[in-house]
C-alpha cells in the first residue's frame, strides 16, 4: 500500500516534471527539470526494485549526460532571441498527444485486465535488481549487445573528437625584412 501510494506520488512528479521539460521555454529550464525528472524516475526504479538501474540513471543521465547539456548551454550562453523558443506545430502535437494517449488506453484495454493487477512481489532472497544479477545477464546472454554498446561508445568518442577538432592555424614563421630567409 505504502509502495503503491509512493509510486503514484512519484509518477505524478515524473509526469509533472516531464511536462515542464517539454513546455518550458528556455533550454536551461528544460534541462534542470529533466534532471529532476531523472531523479524521480530513479526513485521509481527503486520502487520497482531495480536499485542498480536507479543509481545508474542518476550517474549516467543526471551526472554525465545532463552535465554535458548544461555545459553546452552555458558555453553557448545564448540570448533568448537566438534561442528562438517560440514553438511551432503546436496544434498538431497536441492533437497527436491526445490521440496517442487514447490509443494507449485502448491498447491497455485490449491487452486485458491482468495488466491492471499489481505485479507479483519479489521473493525474499531474490537477487533482482542487484549488480550481480544484472552483470550475469549482461555478460552471458547479452554479451554481444554489451560489446556492441562498447563499440558504439568508442565510435561516439571518435566521432565527437572528429566533430570538435578544429585544425590549428599553421604557424607561419615571420621574418623581419633584414633577416635572410633560410634557403
Amino acid at each position, binding site marked *: 500500500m505504502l509502495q503503491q501510494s509512493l509510486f503514484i506520488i512519484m509518477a505524478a512528479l515524473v509526469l509533472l516534471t516531464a511536462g515542464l521539460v517539454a513546455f518550458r521555454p528556455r533550454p*536551461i529550464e528544460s534541462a*534542470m527539470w529533466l*534532471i529532476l525528472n531523472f531523479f524521480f524516475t530513479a526513485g521509481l526504479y527503486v520502487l520497482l526494485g531495480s*536499485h*542498480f538501474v536507479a*543509481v*545508474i540513471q*542518476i*550517474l549516467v543521465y*543526471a*551526472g*554525465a549526460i545532463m*552535465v554535458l547539456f*548544461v*555545459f553546452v*548551454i*552555458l*558555453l553557448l*550562453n545564448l540570448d533568448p532571441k537566438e534561442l528562438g523558443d517560440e514553438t511551432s506545430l503546436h496544434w498538431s502535437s497536441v492533437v497527436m498527444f491526445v490521440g496517442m494517449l487514447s490509443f494507449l488506453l485502448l491498447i491497455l484495454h485490449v491487452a486485458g485486465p491482468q495488466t491492471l493487477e499489481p505485479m507479483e512481489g519479489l521473493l525474499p532472497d531474490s537477487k533482482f535488481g*542487484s*549488480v550481480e544479477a544484472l552483470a550475469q545477464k549482461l555478460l552471458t546472454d547479452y554479451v554481444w549487445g554489451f560489446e556492441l554498446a562498447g563499440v558504439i561508445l568508442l565510435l561516439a568518442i571518435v566521432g565527437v573528437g572528429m566533430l570538435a577538432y578544429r585544425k590549428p592555424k599553421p604557424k607561419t614563421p615571420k621574418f623581419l625584412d633584414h633577416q635572410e630567409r633560410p634557403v
Partner: protein
Amino acid sequence: MVETFLSNPDFIKWAFFAGKILLLFGLAFGVVAPVMIWVERRVAGLIQDRYGPNRVGPFGLLQSLADGIKLLLKEDLRPTEIRPVFYLLAPILSVIPAAMAFAVIPFGPPTTLGGLLPTPMRLQIAELNVGLVYVLAISSLSVYAIALAGWASNNKFSVLGSLRASAQMISYELAAGLAIVSVILLSGSVDLMAIAQSQTEMWNIFPGFLAFLVFLPAIFAETNRTPFDLPEAEAELVVGYHTEYSGIKFGLFFLAEYVNMATVSALCILFFFGGWEFLPWLSWEKIGVDLNTFWFIPTIWFFTKIAAFLFFFVWVRWTLPRFRYDQLMSIGWKTLIPIALLNILITTTYLVFEKAS
C-alpha cells in the same frame, strides 16, 4: 509504558537510524567544517611560519563560529544582471550532493551496540548494496552547482571559472571512476561496507597502489583543492564561480567544499586504507579487541584516519603551487586515465593469477 516503548525493537531501530543520521551529519556540518576552517588557517600559519587565527577563543578555536555568524548576518547582496532562480539554486545544489553522499558511508562494522540491538546492524545511514556507485553518482552532481553558479552570476570570471570547474570535474571523475574499478575488482563488491570488510587481511593500498596514485590527484581535483584549484584561481579569475556570491550563499559553497573533502577522505580510506581496521595486516580481532563491547573503537579509529587525511589535504594546499590549466587537463586525460586503464589490466591479471594459485 515508556520503558516498553523504549524496548520496542521498532523504536530501537528507528532510534538507531536517527542516531546514525545525527552523528554523521552533526560531525560533517557541525564539526568537520568549522574545525577544518580553523585547522586550515592554523596549519597555514604553521607552514608559513606565522600565527594564524588566535584571537577568538583559545588558540582561535572559536574563529569559525565567529565567521559563521558574520556570514549569516551579512546583507544578502544580489547583483542586478543575474539569472535569479539559478543564482539561488546553485549554492543549495552544492550542499545537497555533499550531504547525500554521506548517507551511504559506513563508519564501523555491523554491531549490536554492546547488546542494545537484537541483531547486528550496520553503522551506515542507508544500507544500499550499490553504495559505491551511488557515491559516484551523487558526487557527479556537484558539477551542477558550480556550472550554474558561474552561469547565473552573468560574470565573465564566473563563467570561465565554472567552465573550468565543470571540465575539470568531469575529467577527473573519469579517472577516479576508473581507479575505483580496480578497487571493486579487488573487493568483489560495490557495497561500501563489503569493501571495507574485505580489507581485514590486507589493505587495498598494497595491491592497488597504482589505483591510489590515480585516485589521489583525482579527488584533489574533484574537490577543487590546490594544486587543482583552477576554478577559483584568485590571481586569474578573482575567485571564479563564486565571485558574485556573498553572505550565507558563499558560506554554503564554503561548507560544501569541506564536507566534500570529508566525503572523499572517507572514501579514500574505505577504498585503500582498510576503513576502520587497525593496521594493514592487523585487524582489531587479531589484536584481541572485543568489538561487541568496544564497538566504538573502530569508529573512532575511522574518524581519526579521516582527520589525518584531512590534514594531508591542508598540508598539500599550503605546500604545492597551482597547475596551469592545460597541464591540468593533460595530466587528467593523458596520464591518469591511461594509468588507470593500465591498472585495471594489471589488477585483473593479478586477480586471475591469484585465483589460479
